[in-house]
C-alpha cells in the first residue's frame, strides 16, 4: 500500500494562495468595490466637515486610515464564509497539509486583494487632502505594516463568527475593537510626520505588532475554524 502524504506547510500555503487569488481574479468587482468604498468614505469627510486646506491636511492622515480600516473590514466576511458554506472548509480541515499552512495562505491572499490595493491607493487619496510627499510616504508605509495586521486579526474574528446568525454584526463587534491599536499607531505615524515629529516610534510599534500577529494569530485562526466546522 502507498504511504499516505503528510503534506507540507508550504504546500497548503501555496494551495490557498493560488486558489483564492484565482477566484479573486475571476471576480475583480470585489477589489474594485473595496477601493471604491475607500475613495467614497475618504471623500465624504471634506463634504461633512468643510474643505479648508489647513483642516484637511490636519485630519487627512487619520481619515485615510479610518477609511482604509473600514474598507478592509468590509472585505473580511468573504475570507472564510464561502468556503464554509460550500464545504471547502471541511475538505481543508481533512487535508494532509497542516492547517497552519492553508490558514496563513488564505489570510495572505486576502491581504493581497484588500490591504495591498488600499495601501497602493492611499497616496492618491492623500493628495486630495493636500498632504505633503513625506506624509504620503509615511502614510503608505504605515498602511503597508498595518493592513496585514487587520487581515490577520480580522481573519481570526471572521473564522469565529462563521455560522453565527447575524455574523456580519457579530464580526463588527469582535473585530473593530481589536483594530483600535492598529489605527492609533498607524494614523499616529502619519500625523507625527505631518506635524514635524519622527514617525519611527509609531512605525516600530506597528512592525512589532505585525510580527507578533504573524506568529500568534494563524494558530488562533486554525482553532476558530476547527470550532466552526464542528
Amino acid at each position, binding site marked *: 500500500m502507498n504511504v*499516505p502524504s*503528510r503534506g507540507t506547510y508550504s504546500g497548503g500555503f501555496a*494551495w490557498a494562495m493560488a*486558489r483564492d487569488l484565482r477566484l479573486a481574479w475571476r471576480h475583480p468587482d470585489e477589489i474594485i468595490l473595496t477601493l471604491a468604498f475607500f475613495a467614497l468614505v475618504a471623500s465624504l469627510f471634506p463634504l461633512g466637515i468643510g474643505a479648508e486646506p489647513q483642516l484637511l491636511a490636519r485630519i487627512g492622515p487619520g481619515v485615510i486610515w479610518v477609511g482604509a480600516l473600514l474598507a478592509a473590514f468590509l472585505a473580511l466576511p468573504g475570507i472564510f464564509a464561502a468556503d464554509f458554506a460550500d464545504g471547502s472548509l471541511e475538505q481543508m*480541515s481533512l*487535508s494532509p497539509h497542516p492547517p497552519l499552512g492553508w490558514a496563513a495562505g488564505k489570510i495572505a491572499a486576502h491581504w493581497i486583494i484588500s490591504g495591498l490595493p488600499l495601501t497602493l491607493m492611499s497616496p492618491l487619496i492623500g493628495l486630495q487632502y493636500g498632504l505633503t510627499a513625506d506624509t504620503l510616504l509615511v502614510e503608505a508605509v504605515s498602511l503597508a505594516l498595518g493592513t496585514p495586521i487587520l487581515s490577520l486579526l480580522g481573519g481570526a474574528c471572521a473564522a469565529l463568527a462563521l455560522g453565527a446568525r447575524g455574523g456580519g454584526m457579530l464580526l463588527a463587534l469582535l473585530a473593530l475593537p481589536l483594530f483600535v491599536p492598529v489605527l492609533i499607531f498607524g494614523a499616529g505615524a502619519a500625523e507625527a510626520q505631518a506635524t514635524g515629529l519622527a514617525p519611527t516610534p509609531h512605525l516600530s510599534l506597528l512592525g512589532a505588532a505585525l510580527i507578533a500577529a504573524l506568529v500568534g494569530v494563524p494558530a488562533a485562526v486554525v482553532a476558530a475554524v476547527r470550532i466552526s466546522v464542528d
Partner: protein
Amino acid sequence: MTEGHAALEVRDIACRRGPALLFSKLDFDVFPGELLCVRGPNGCGKTTLLRCVTGLTRPDAGRIAWLGQSVAEDPARFRGDIAYGGHLPALKDDLTTEENLEFSLRLRDVAVDREAIARALAAVGLEKRRRLPARRLSAGQRRRIGLARLSLDPALLWILDEPLTALDDAGQAQFVELLDRHLARGGLALVATHHNLLPPSGKVRELRIAP
C-alpha cells in the same frame, strides 16, 4: 498490512447533539477490502457518526484507531489516508470543472498531470464540460466531479455520506464500479446510504444506528 486485522477500529463512540443523545457505546471495525454501510432512519446520526470518525466533529466519548495506532496520537497521518465526501460538494462555482478537480487533488497532496485529470473527467462523462465554470453544471454533474476525484485519490479509507444523491443510473453504476475497484485494491469504505450497494468483489457489512 495483514488480512484479518481491522484497519479501522472504533470503540465505545458516543455523540450528543444538544440535549439529544444520537448514539452511544457504538463499536465497529472495518477490514481491508470491506464496505461498511451505515444505515438508519433520517436524523439518527449517520452523518454525525461519519464526521466523528473523520475528526471533523469531536465525539463525546470513544476511541478510534487506524492501522493499530490511535488517531488522537497522529491525526495528520490519518487525514492523509481518508477521502471524505460530505453533503456539501466543496466546489467553487467560479472555477472550471478542471480547476475544481485539480485544486481538490492538490489539497489532498495528490500529484496528477493534466492528462490524468482529462482522462478522469472523460471517464465520468464530463469531457465536454471541462472548461465550464462549475456553476453551469447540474447537481448530478457536480457529483460526477466527486467521482472523478475519488478515482484519482489513492486514499485508503473512503468516508462517504450519501454518495449516490443526484446521480443518475449510469452515475450510480459508475460509483459502484469505482467502489469495487477500491475494495479490490484492499481499500476500505464507510458509507452512509439508503441505497443497496452491491460491489461484486468486496465484503459488505451493515451498521444500524438505532436511536
